[in-house]
């Protein structure tokens, strides 16, 4: 196993730059999740690391070895594809043993590695089946098994759970997490699903438009986002944002209201436009300076999401109790100052005290 380092990595397809300069260090044995909206370049970044796309500029180091121009097969990486990419005409055994077959690994050793991986993934019973005779979850395990037998330095997962149904996805997520703990391997995992990112990652890399927006532990990113994009991307429903202007008194007046809210950060320049961010679970209903009109109420049983119109925008509140109010009711709410964050309205960057 080894870590991985990306330096000044760029990738352009024709005149379009997809990856616009990524610097990233991944420690040995770490599970890092690349997350971002579709088209953010996360899959391209993974394919650059795998060697399936050529790098336009920059370096990729695996361990201490520069693999930027090394053939994909010799980089010491194994990849699990979203579509599993199993060979449909081969049995599970042949699929998992394919790499060893083409690399002429001695038969006894190949069989031993294959049996070991099959046992680890509970595939022993299925070794003589073809992919078409397997369920989605089983196919996914075969794809992972094919990666494991190669004993790679880095595992690459490209949205491996997107083709599974919700229940199976939760189960496979737990299995992957356990697998990572058992193998202690360096893993890079690409997903657009922030729940997968939050639950699996040692560290999350949030990508947007080919750039890294922020890197950090899942809860660190959730609690302490660097900018509006990261704040809005992690969490569901997403963080509430109210555009406001700093008053002469230092207080904040949200657009479309006549109320001034206390600022979590003192001494802001009057007239500056800021965005107040507050997570739905921190919004307090019942009393407070802001007036809101209820739009929809989503009852999930253990929690309730209330979506409201407030200060020219929509505000969501998450309550851990049942909530009887229906649409069109008017109520008051508070965004507790200690639990709000401020962002610059122009640059989208976090304003820290």
């Amino acid at each position, binding site marked *: 196993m080894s870590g991985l380092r990306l330096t000044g990595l760029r990738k352009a397809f024709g005149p379009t730059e997809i990856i616009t300069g990524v610097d990233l260090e991944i420690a040995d044995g770490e599970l890092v999740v690349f997350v971002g909206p579709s088209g953010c370049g996360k899959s391209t970044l993974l394919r650059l690391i*795998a*060697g*399936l796309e050529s790098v336009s500029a920059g370096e990729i180091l695996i361990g201490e070895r520069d693999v930027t121009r090394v053939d*994909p*097969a*010799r980089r010491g*990486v*194994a*990849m699990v*594809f*979203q*579509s599993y*990419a*199993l*060979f*449909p*005409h*081969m*049995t599970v055994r042949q699929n998992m043993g*394919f*790499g060893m077959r*083409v*690399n002429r690994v001695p038969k006894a050793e190949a069989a031993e590695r294959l049996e070991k991986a099959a046992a680890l993934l509970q595939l022993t019973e299925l070794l*003589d089946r*073809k992919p078409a005779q397997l369920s989605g979850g089983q196919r996914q395990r075969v794809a992972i098994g*094919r990666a494991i037998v*190669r004993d790679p330095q880095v595992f690459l997962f490209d949205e491996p759970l997107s083709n599974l149904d919700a229940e199976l996805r939760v189960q496979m997520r737990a299995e992957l997490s356990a697998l990572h703990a058992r193998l202690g391997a360096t893993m890079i995992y690409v997903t657009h699903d922030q729940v997968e990112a939050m639950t699996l990652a040692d560290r999350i890399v949030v990508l947007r438009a080919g750039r890294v927006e922020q890197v950090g532990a899942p809860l660190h990113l959730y609690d302490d986002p660097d900018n509006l994009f990261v704040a809005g991307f992690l969490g569901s429903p997403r963080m509430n944002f109210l555009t406001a202007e700093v008053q002469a008194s230092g207080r904040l007046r949200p657009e479309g209201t006549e109320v001034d809210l206390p600022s979590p950060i003192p001494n802001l320049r009057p007239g500056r436009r800021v965005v107040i961010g507050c997570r739905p679970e921190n919004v307090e209903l019942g009393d407070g300076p802001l007036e809101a009109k209820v739009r929809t109420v989503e009852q999930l049983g253990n929690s309730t999401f209330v979506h409201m119109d407030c200060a020219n925008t929509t505000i969501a509140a998450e309550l851990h109790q049942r909530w009887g109010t229906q649409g069109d009711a008017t109520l008051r709410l508070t965004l507790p100052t200690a639990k709000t964050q401020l962002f610059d309205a122009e640059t989208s960057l976090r304003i820290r005290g």
Partner: protein
Amino acid sequence: MNRSPVALLVLTLAPALLGLAIFRAYPIGLALYESLYTTIAGERTFVGLENYVGLLTDSGFWKSLRVTLWFNLIINPLQVALALALALMFVQKLPGMAVFRLLFLIPIGISLPVAVIIWRIVLLPEGFLNGALGAIGLGPYRFLTSPDFALYSIIAIATWKGISYWMIFLVGGLQNIPPEINEAARLEGASAWQRLWLVTLPLLRPTLLFVLVADITINFLLFAPVFMLTGGGPRGSTNVLMYEAYKSGFVFGDMGRAMAIVVCLVAMLLVIVAIQFRLLSSAPAKEAR
């Protein structure tokens, strides 16, 4: 109104079935029927299997059969292999591919008679090809009038005309293989050659089977280039069974013999196609064991 699904089935299938009956079943039946008759002095007489028995001892038939088999033994593997090679090139994302694609699609757009006439001009003793070969000190060769060359010239022309057509089917088959499967094989360390043998070709097998069967059928029944270029000659070197049947029926007026040859040809074709289906479609099942 009758709402029975059977009636509906018959009604909707009727046009296709009618076409099949008129254009396929009827000629085959007619050929079978006619092959049992002979025409002597303008009078049609029932002779049973005599036309077939006659073929057995007919050296002209056997020679023509040898030419047909040799022709097919060369042209079919050649066409499929070239079409596959072109298809593999066709799907590459390389610069200049658009021109390549256009060039290889041109033969499909040219009608066979026109193509044959152009090739005839190219292959004449004083034609373009001999001119080019003469420039490097070779030839001239009698491409269409020498028994050593004529069959191969026809193979070349039919191949030129045919491969782009088969290439399109194979391109379709190749594009049906998800790119990740090849990428996965690449990551596993398979060379380009191994990827072709172990991944691409097995997955292309259904398309290859279709192309091979359809190609053999067409080449067994090839007629126009022979008719237009060599008339079966020189010295019978291009006298395939289809042309032998044509001569027998329309030149010598022995329709019974012509039909017997056609029936033999169709019977051989059916056997060959059946063998191919068995060989190519049972192979994946064997692998599973």
